[in-house]
């Protein structure tokens, strides 16, 4: 099992550009999450999904969108990138009930200039 994989590992965007961060898991987990981690801060939840076709907002959803067409994939879309979106983004997944440990991907480091 590869676990949770994310692409790309690094990306530099110009203000106003858009991009999609990819996340795939091969553990057949229903629950998937997107977090952002800023220096010296705890991870903040952006969006989550409890299954294919079902998504909802977390703590900091503004400027982002998600979709979940399959169990395996949970892409995060950034529209009109802003410097405030410079961060490290982590995707995570967990088992059916959601009340278990979450497994994280290696992260995508995004810089918006």
């Amino acid at each position, binding site marked *: 099992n590869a676990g*949770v994989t994310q692409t790309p590992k690094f990306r530099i965007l110009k203000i106003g550009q858009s991009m999609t961060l990819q996340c795939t898991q091969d553990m057949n987990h229903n*629950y998937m*999450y997107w977090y952002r981690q800023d220096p*010296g*801060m*705890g*991870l*903040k*939840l952006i969006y*989550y999904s*409890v299954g294919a076709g079902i998504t*909802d907002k*977390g703590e900091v959803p503004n400027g982002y969108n998600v979709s979940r067409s399959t169990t395996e994939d949970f892409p995060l879309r950034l529209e009109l990138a802003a410097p405030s979106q410079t961060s490290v983004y*982590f995707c*995570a997944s*967990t088992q059916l*009930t*959601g*009340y*278990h*440990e*979450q*497994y*994280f*991907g*290696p*992260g995508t480091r995004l810089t918006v200039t």
Partner: protein
Amino acid sequence: EDQVTQSPEALRLQEGESSSLNCSYTVSGLRGLFWYRQDPGKGPEFLFTLYSAGEEKEKERLKATLTKKESFLHITAPKPEDSATYLCAVQARNRGSTLGRLYFGRGTQLTVWP
């Protein structure tokens, strides 16, 4: 409002010098408390889950304990390879939801020097 507070922010230990990291939390109805290890440039790696006060779990040189208001991560005779940031997260009993979202602390950066 912070629901999870970790202390200290940073800790430097000499190899073999035991110590403890603290995670205090305020959440209505704790479902679980999680400890993660994060190495630079990598995603958090799961260590432990604790569900009820009095519970303890061990893994090599690490031991996690839980009370009604805080958790400790005890590190016994640490080695340089234990250097990492240790994250604490809590999961609350959601009303009408099975999301199980995690609230993370800011972490404790541990450095163990030879």
